[in-house]
């Protein structure tokens, strides 16, 4: 078995341009060195029924042995406030905040602290292993605690707080449930006594949702809290629960409150990794590992579901013990990308023999995207990096019980999946849930991603099958990345006569949609060879390259559901969810939109009357009128996996020609939830003619046009019989015609002018 995980790593940045620098951050728990080489990826899919893994060595100064060390990943999010005189000088004090715990059996969890675990110094407020509010103070080597008498409830708000009286040494801890009905009241308190006149450790940050392990410069943390923390308040002196709760109820601190030390307001700077203190000392902080922001607070009234319209009700942050944003590894290798390298999918290949004597081959992926004004071809292939990141380290087959029923086959896991099962610190995908069951909203490229590289699985692999086919045709092309389209807009697309999106361009930002619309309207030609594309409204973080965000909303094919009020993107303030729910269904852009998943078997296409229209004769050159199209490929058909159909009510253009369809899926064709309003029998493909993959063509303006196949499986059929098949022929017919600047004619008087 090929060992693909003996070395793991990531490239920073994940996307580079020729002439710029990429750094590689590597780790191995078992090997001290490996042989390094850059490769360009023609095909990453190891399936022997396809072309197999095809890599092109790219000689570079990196060729040779690289020394390896083990670089650990420290998962778990938290907030850190640098030590300050106002924190060190605390004498008697009180602290409180709202909490919404989500995983009480995760062991003791710290909510807010200035605590060093190694020396057991300082103070901390949190939940004990039984889920009870607990306050600990260490004074002169004595550790004293007070712990409430009963456990909080998961996913229920409670105000928790504590005080230390330095003159008497008395400790107090309390918890008060927000909803006290139906057995939900878990209000309780406790007192304890500690030595008087505590002195607090210097140089130690105040932390939220964890405490510090030691005084190291990395500020490593432990005892991560799972759940939301809302409106923490720190006061000098001893205050009651009621007083602290009133302090939190005032969204802005009351002027003249001389006891107030800090009033943190997590509703400020929601799009950033910073958080703000509205108290008198400016005790602002930073967040580590991207906890979820723009989440509802204890005061959320539901008068609006969108955070930008009531930020004061979004003063909470949801922390997770498995959040990971940036591994912060040291750089092992770096490369200035030669200016004459072609754009494309690349990786750093690391080869060695593992400790069992087995061959080890690991890849660290990156993309070289052609930049605006630097086109070297008429055709551009779009690397769907937002989609690859959305799926990065997907564990749905490991964690989601219904996956086997959904995929209709015994699950096949690779060595990468087995590794991920054991190494959850890598962080999962936006399809997965955190250890507390809440969904992953963010995905970052600053960590090893196992399913975005040769020999792995997933949609990255499928898109390399399209690249392999392009290489087989001799049609020259550039690779551009979707995030460059996001950044540079339509000018990047305008360099090309035709732009090709692959098997599954599912995650799109508004800027990317706008760029495609402008491109199409300006005479650009767009070939969409996939299914379930242009589906989720997504954000690239404005200042953190390689971090995407998605909220799953309340409809769509989704593996978790967004919480009410939490479907706005924290990075940009936009609503998330389906583009269809945001007034821009994919049908409007590309003529077709998602209708069903079909995993049990593929289906061939048959030509429809529109295909005989002489204006689109070029598509079927060399294909008979009655010829069955694509009765091969992924589970036996070029139609399948996820499929898209025409719907004029959802925006498919009037000039669209539906030239072929794959519509004989049987009961394994399952409608996506947004395709039906009420449940009834007969929604499956055996009884429902809306379950189909439509092949379409339509003209746009100024000579522009769009061609779609409406199926993820299409790309997987291209290499059948040595690329000599009608899926390959149709695709090549379309691309060659789309690259040819000659206008499409005959689509109506008003359009003729524009052509």
């Amino acid at each position: 078995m090929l060992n693909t995980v003996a070395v793991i790593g990531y490239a920073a940045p994940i996307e580079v341009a020729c002439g710029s620098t990429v750094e590689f951050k590597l780790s191995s728990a078992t090997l001290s060195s490996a042989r390094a080489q850059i490769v360009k990826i023609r095909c990453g899919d190891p399936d022997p029924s396809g072309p197999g893994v095809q890599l092109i060595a790219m000689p570079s100064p990196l060729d040779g042995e690289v020394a390896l060390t083990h670089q650990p990943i420290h998962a778990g999010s938290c907030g850190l406030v640098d030590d300050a005189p106002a924190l060190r000088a605390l004498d008697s004090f009180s602290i409180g905040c709202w909490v919404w715990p989500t995983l009480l059996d995760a062991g003791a969890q710290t909510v807010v602290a200035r605590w060093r675990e190694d020396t057991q110094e300082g103070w901390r407020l949190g939940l004990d292993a039984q889920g009870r509010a607990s306050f600990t103070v260490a004074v002169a080597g004595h550790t004293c605690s007070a712990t409430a008498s009963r456990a909080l409830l998961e996913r229920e708000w409670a105000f928790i707080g504590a005080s230390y009286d330095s003159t008497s040494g008395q400790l107090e801890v309390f918890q008060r449930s927000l909803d006290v009905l139906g057995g939900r009241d878990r209000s309780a308190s406790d007192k304890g006594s500690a030595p008087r006149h505590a002195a607090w450790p210097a140089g130690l940050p105040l932390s939220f949702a964890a405490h510090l392990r030691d005084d190291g410069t990395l500020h490593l943390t432990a005892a991560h809290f799972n759940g939301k923390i809302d409106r923490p308040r720190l006061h000098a002196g001893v205050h009651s629960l009621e007083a602290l709760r009133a302090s939190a109820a005032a969204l802005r601190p009351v002027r003249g409150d001389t006891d107030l030390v800090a009033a943190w307001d997590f509703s400020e700077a929601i799009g950033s990794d910073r958080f703000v203190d509205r108290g008198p000392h400016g005790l602002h902080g930073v967040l580590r590992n991207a906890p979820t922001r723009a989440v509802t607070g204890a005061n959320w009234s539901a008068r609006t579901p969108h955070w930008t319209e009531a930020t004061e009700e979004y003063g909470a942050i949801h922390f997770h013990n498995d959040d990971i944003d940036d591994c912060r590894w040291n750089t092992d290798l770096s490369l200035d990308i030669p200016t004459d390298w072609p754009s494309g999918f690349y990786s750093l290949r690391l080869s060695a023999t593992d400790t069992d004597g087995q061959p080890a081959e690991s890849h660290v992926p990156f993309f070289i995207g052609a930049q605006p004004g630097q086109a070297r071809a008429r055709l551009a292939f779009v690397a769907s990096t937002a989609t690859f990141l959305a799926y990065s380290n997907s564990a749905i087959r490991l964690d989601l019980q219904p996956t086997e029923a959904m995929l209709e086959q015994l699950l096949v896991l690779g060595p990468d999946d087995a590794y991920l099962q054991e190494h959850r610190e890598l962080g999962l995908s936006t399809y997965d849930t955190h250890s507390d069951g809440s969904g992953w909203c963010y995905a970052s490229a600053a960590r090893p991603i196992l399913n975005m590289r040769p020999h792995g699985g997933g949609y990255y692999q499928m898109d390399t099958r399209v690249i392999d086919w392009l290489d087989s045709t001799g049609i020259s092309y550039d690779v551009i990345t979707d995030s460059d389209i996001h950044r540079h807009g339509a000018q990047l697309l305008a360099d090309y006569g035709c732009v090709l999106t692959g098997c599954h361009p599912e995650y799109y930002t508004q800027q990317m949609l706008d760029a495609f619309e402008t491109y199409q309207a300006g005479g650009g030609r767009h070939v969409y060879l996939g299914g379930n594309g242009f589906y989720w409204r997504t954000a690239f973080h404005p200042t953190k390259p390689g971090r995407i965000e998605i909220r799953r909303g309340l409809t769509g094919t989704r593996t978790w559901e967004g919480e009410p009020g939490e479907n706005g993107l924290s990075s940009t303030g936009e609503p998330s969810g389906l583009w269809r729910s945001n007034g821009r269904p994919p049908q409007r852009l590309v003529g077709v939109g998602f209708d069903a998943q079909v995993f049990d078997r593929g289906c061939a296409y048959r030509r429809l009357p529109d295909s005989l229209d002489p204006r689109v004769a070029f598509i079927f050159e060399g294909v008979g009128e009655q010829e069955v199209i694509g009765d091969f490929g992924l589970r036996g058909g070029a139609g399948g996996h996820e499929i898209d159909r025409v719907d004029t009510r959802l925006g498919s253009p009037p000039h669209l020609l539906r030239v072929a369809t794959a519509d004989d899926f049987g009961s394994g064709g399952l409608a996506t939830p947004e395709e039906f309003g009420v449940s009834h029998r007969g929604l499956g493909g055996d009884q429902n003619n809306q379950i189909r993959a439509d092949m379409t063509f339509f003209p746009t303006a100024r000579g522009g046009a769009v061609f779609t196949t409406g199926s993820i499986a299409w790309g997987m059929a291209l290499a059948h019989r040595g690329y000599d098949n009608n899926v390959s022929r149709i695709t090549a017919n379309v691309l060659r015609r789309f690259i040819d600047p000659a206008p499409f004619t005959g689509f109506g008087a008003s359009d003729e002018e524009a052509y």
Partner: protein
Amino acid sequence: MLTTDASQARYLIDPTRLDLAREFRRVPRGHYSLELQQVLYRMRWSGVGQRHVLLMLEPGRRWMLAQLPARRGEPLKTFPEQVFTSIADAEWTVFCLRWELLTGESISNLNLD
């Protein structure tokens, strides 16, 4: 919060319906009759810690039987004596395991070809 109950699937498999086992033996992957769909649906909800999977040893060529643990972070349980060179054999082996678990009757020694 949208959640899934790992034991929500329900269907009583009739142990006398060997014709359905025979159908699966013939077409382990692809389109099934309605009754076989119901049997397989029940079988594929095997429950927390009970889920059999295949671990790929060589892409498209060799697979080992394995089982997913109940908790995240724990290693896969593997069965090194159960290695398959055909997906159909692997599917059949797991079908027989599940048939026996759900009906109490073994079919692995019957000739159902």
